[in-house]
């Protein structure tokens, strides 16, 4: 796990630091690091292209589910989830496509869910706002702002009781910080010492309400500090920053059961819900969006990988082509899948259906 730290040392100081990591040759270290750096780029691109495909097809109006797009925020899901084991818990929100993909959910069962098909991750019962993939630690997502945070505290409590050494990540936006559940959860986690990583994706807007219209201070992190929880703010558009912060947080949760709070400053490019830009409607200034687009997390990381000599522009194009092919296959799978039988309306209301 010291590999990346060493890499940064090489980048910033021009030489390897002595991390006592089995005397690995620099060449080998670089190879391993390259794999992680490349994977972060690939995952971010997958999320981006996955959602751009939704924008492409949405106007046909056969994808009948409200979509809350994650474009612009990809670095956060990817920088965090890369540290997680398959069965670590992740709780997320109505804006959860990115978290599922970062955790490894196949695009096919997500698209199938959006199209209301039986082959969807929730058999067409949940839609875009209620994704689930228990095989990869996604035990449900909620569309009630702040509602998923305490659920993640509950799985962490269970982990502590069962000593299963799993960690829980709860993703939420700045809107959820307005809710009582966050403060209730922070207090309880601090009290009980639970293995949780709070990841606040502060994109400054709850639907169209700006942070400053809702809160007396900009810094959500202060809520965690008030509960004596390890906390830090990072540039949510820099995947390596998120990666480093999350690495420490996950290690700390796993090794000593300590919670952390990471506030990631970022920006949502598209409207709150739907496939369009919302500056056209006057929801926020276009100039603000333009500034953030210049700060695109994928472009930023692409430049980094190129500067490291890990990929060339041609490699990048190849990467997109491979991802796009995967997405086409996933969309085709979804559209060819059967709709649920209407009798399934009455199924899954109760466990054991009695």
């Amino acid at each position: 796990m010291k590999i990346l730290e060493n890499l940064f040392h090489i980048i910033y100081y021009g030489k390897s630091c002595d991390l006592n990591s089995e005397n690995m040759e620099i060449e080998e270290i670089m190879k391993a690091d390259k794999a992680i750096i490349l994977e972060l780029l690939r995952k971010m691109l997958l999320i981006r292209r996955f959602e751009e495909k939704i924008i492409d097809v949405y106007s046909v109006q056969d994808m009948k589910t409200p979509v809350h797009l994650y474009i612009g925020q990809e670095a956060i899901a990817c920088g965090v989830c890369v540290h997680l084991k398959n069965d670590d818990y992740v709780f997320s929100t109505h804006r959860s496509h990115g978290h599922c993909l970062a955790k490894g959910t196949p695009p096919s069962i997500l698209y199938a869910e959006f199209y209301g098909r039986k082959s969807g991750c929730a058999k067409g019962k949940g839609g875009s706002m209620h994704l689930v993939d228990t095989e990869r630690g996604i035990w449900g997502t909620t569309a009630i702002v702040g509602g998923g945070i305490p659920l993640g505290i509950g799985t962490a409590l269970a982990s502590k009781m069962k000593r299963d050494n799993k960690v829980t990540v709860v993703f939420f936006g700045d809107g959820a910080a307005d809710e009582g559940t966050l403060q209730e959860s922070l207090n309880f986690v601090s009290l009980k010492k639970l293995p949780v990583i709070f990841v606040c994706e502060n994109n400054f807007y709850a639907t169209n309400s700006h942070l400053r219209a809702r809160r007396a201070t900009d810094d959500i992190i202060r809520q965690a500090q008030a509960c004596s929880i390890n906390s830090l703010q990072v540039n949510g558009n820099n995947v390596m920053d998120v990666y480093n912060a999350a690495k420490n947080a996950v290690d700390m949760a796993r090794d000593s059961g300590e919670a952390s709070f990471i506030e990631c400053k970022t920006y949502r490019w598209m409207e709150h819900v739907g496939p369009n830009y919302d500056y056209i409607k006057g929801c926020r200034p276009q100039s603000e969006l333009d500034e953030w687009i210049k700060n695109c997390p994928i472009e930023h990381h692409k430049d980094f990988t190129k500067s490291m000599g890990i990929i060339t522009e041609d490699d990048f194009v190849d990467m997109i082509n491979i991802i796009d092919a995967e997405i086409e296959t996933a969309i085709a799978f979804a559209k060819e899948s059967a709709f649920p039988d209407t009798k399934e309306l009455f199924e899954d209301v109760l466990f054991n259906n009695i």
Partner: protein
Amino acid sequence: MPWTKVFLNNKELDNDGVNKGLRSISYKEALKEAHNLMMDKDERVFIMGEGVDDPGGVFGSTVGLCDKFGRDRVMDIPLAENGMTGVAIGAAIAGMKPIFVHMRMDFLPMCMDQIINHAAKWYYMSGGRVNVNIVIRSIIGRGWGSAAQHSQAIHGLFVHIPGLKVVMPATPYDAKGLLISALEDGNPVMFVEHRWLYDSIGYVPNDIYTVPIGKGVVRRQGKDVTVVAISHMIYEAMLAAKELQNEGVDVEIIDPRSIKPLDEGLIFESIRKTGRLVIADVGGKMVGVGAEIASRVYEDMYGFLKGPVRRIGLPDVPTPCSSVLEKAYYPDYKDIVNSIKTLLS
């Protein structure tokens, strides 16, 4: 069957010669025993709630359990009802079996988001992939000026929500058996108790047993009129039946025990025999459980009815404090007697 008997007082129990030798304990002791046995049996079971470990132990129903199981499994919690309900749901998602205890049912409105939007819907929203095995205990208060925020009976609200089960045990036997069933059900179960039942006594086996959720029981056989009574109203119905027996009226009393799912078959069967129905609920009449039962009877059993269905419940008024107003607020056995007499006249 000794297990379905209702005793109005200790004297009745003492006079019950037929079942001498059976153990009798109180409702609160039966609840405590259910917790104790299930926590012994299954380490996934734990209790959380405000004051569950205090010397009073939720009116005696959890007293002493923290000494045996420790405060990790009999967990006092911050006063954060909604968040802590979410924590319990999360623990259930991870395979634990939490029992969340509220000393007053009036505290449930603070948990509504987690109960209604999360616990109740998680199984359906996840396409049947994630169930929530959680028991939420709450106690209806009454009397001594408890007033509007310490004596609500809002079980009807939860009946309205798909994905929840609602049980309302009236006897010690049912309190223990239903709590054990609820813990093994796999669904979120609202377990609604009544403070006035805590000292009631009845026969209770020592071991683990279950009372099936969704199955009612005939408390008293009769042929003239059916009374469906819920929770504490069972005792009022028994008193009413006693009084009417002297006047030659034979009352059948049904205790649904679960109000969701409801054993409508048992109610319908009784109506086939008696043709008359009175429903006595501890909650409000307005859009309440009585209204639901009456509607189902009108829809499916209209041809068997010899008269209109009568409902007894709380008026559409918050609970008052003054003892004079309280007395006027709560219906009792006399209201049941009067309803039956009206129906028979």
